[in-house]
């Protein structure tokens, strides 16, 4: 298989990622214990007759997909693959509320149609008039990783251009419920050394155009992805990481930057906190959830962060765990975890 190049990104997040020039210079803070995405004016990306039916997840997804395609200068793809943990949550809520409030009568079709998890991929396909492979993974904390793995397999089958993305939205009710369950807290400082429990719930949409050709807009190469379900100890994770890197004839000492998914919850971060001393012996380490918060597909924001770091060859001070700057950033590894259950490794290189 030829290399897989990341040739375009589109990111709507709690940070100013909609501005192409922005590179983690300063971070917007959380709203106490959760983040809201900074949303663009959608009229620039979506026709008004379509916009009126769309919930926020769909708008964020379609806009981010559009931005990624524009950046890569691509108008048609061989596949559209999305990942989402909760899907179009706002429309699901709207439909269920109508069901309850109207005593199961007078149910309108729009919110039901728009509430399905695959609506974002479908809308992008409809707008692009793309009749190719269109798939949505709803694998909780592995949703975006599954999209990446599928894309890599499709490249092995000879596909040339693939749009992949991770989408998540929250609603005031959802934030309130998670808060009542004592799962949220204000961001600890620093996020990688938390001693208290609770995440900062968040949302966002990040899309990538992957191609089998290098272009002027290439940011990085996506080499491989591996998922790890409920590892018991940091030793387990380290062993799997050694094997993962070995399959690429690499070892940890060759990783220039490691992007780690500290969520700020001491329980969920336990394994990553134990791995940190080993990783930072040889690699520069950065966090990313202090910028994007925690959600099922935060790994898409991690991929955005890692590919921008490779492209710029700069480690942003706002994310750096310590002030160690490699002379060249060749290999970048993402180690993510979601609620201490879903772990993943994503390996990137410069091109």
């Amino acid at each position, binding site marked *: 298989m030829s290399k897989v190049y990341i040739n375009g990104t589109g990111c709507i997040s709690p940070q100013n990622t909609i501005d192409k020039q922005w590179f983690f210079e300063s971070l917007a803070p959380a709203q106490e214990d959760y983040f809201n995405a900074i949303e663009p004016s959608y009229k620039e990306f979506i026709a008004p007759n379509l916009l*009126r*039916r769309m919930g926020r997840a769909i708008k964020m997804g379609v806009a981010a997909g559009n931005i990624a395609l524009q950046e890569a200068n691509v108008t048609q793809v061989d596949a559209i693959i999305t990942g989402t943990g909760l899907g179009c949550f706002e429309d699901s809520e709207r439909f269920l509320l109508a069901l309850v409030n109207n005593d199961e*009568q*007078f149910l*309108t*079709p*729009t919110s039901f*149609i728009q509430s399905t998890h695959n609506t974002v991929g479908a809308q992008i396909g409809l707008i692009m008039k793309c009749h190719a492979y269109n798939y949505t993974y709803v694998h909780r904390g592995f949703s975006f990783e599954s999209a990446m793995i599928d894309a890599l397999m499709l490249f092995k089958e000879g596909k040339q251009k693939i749009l992949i993305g991770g989408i998540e939205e929250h609603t005031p009710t959802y934030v309130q419920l998670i808060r009542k369950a004592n799962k949220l807290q204000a961001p600890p400082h620093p996020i990688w050394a938390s001693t208290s429990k609770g995440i900062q719930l968040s949302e966002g949409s990040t899309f990538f155009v992957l191609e089998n050709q290098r272009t002027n807009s290439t940011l990085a190469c996506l080499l491989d992805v591996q998922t790890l379900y409920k590892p018991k100890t940091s030793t387990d994770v380290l062993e799997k990481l050694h094997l993962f890197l070995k399959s690429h004839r690499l070892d940890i000492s060759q990783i220039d930057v490691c992007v780690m998914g500290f969520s700020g919850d001491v329980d969920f971060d336990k394994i990553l906190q134990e791995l940190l001393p080993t990783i930072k012996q040889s690699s520069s380490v950065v966090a990313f959830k202090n910028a994007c918060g925690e959600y099922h597909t935060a790994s898409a924001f991690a991929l955005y962060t890692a590919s921008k770091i490779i492209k710029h060859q700069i480690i942003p001070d706002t994310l750096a765990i310590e002030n160690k700057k490699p002379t060249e950033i060749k290999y970048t590894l993402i180690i993510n975890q979601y609620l201490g259950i879903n772990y993943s490794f994503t390996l990137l290189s410069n091109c």
Partner: protein
Amino acid sequence: MDALIEKLKGQIIEQLNLAEVKPEDINPEAPLFGDGLGLDSIDALELIVLLEKYYGIKIQDPKDGKTIFQSVKTMAEYIKSQGKA
């Protein structure tokens, strides 16, 4: 009839989430589908629910929809003909 037409315009805007449209923008005699408001088949389903929800009218024969939903005025006339205005 005029009061019913104005009421219907507001209900259509709300039900179809026509955020950019104001009641005065809707010509009661202009077609709802195609040229006029540019509604589509999903909107047609929303309008059927609107009639049932607000006026207690169930459209028995789907073929009647073409005539009933021609314009805001034809909708109002149908509601009145059913004695639900």
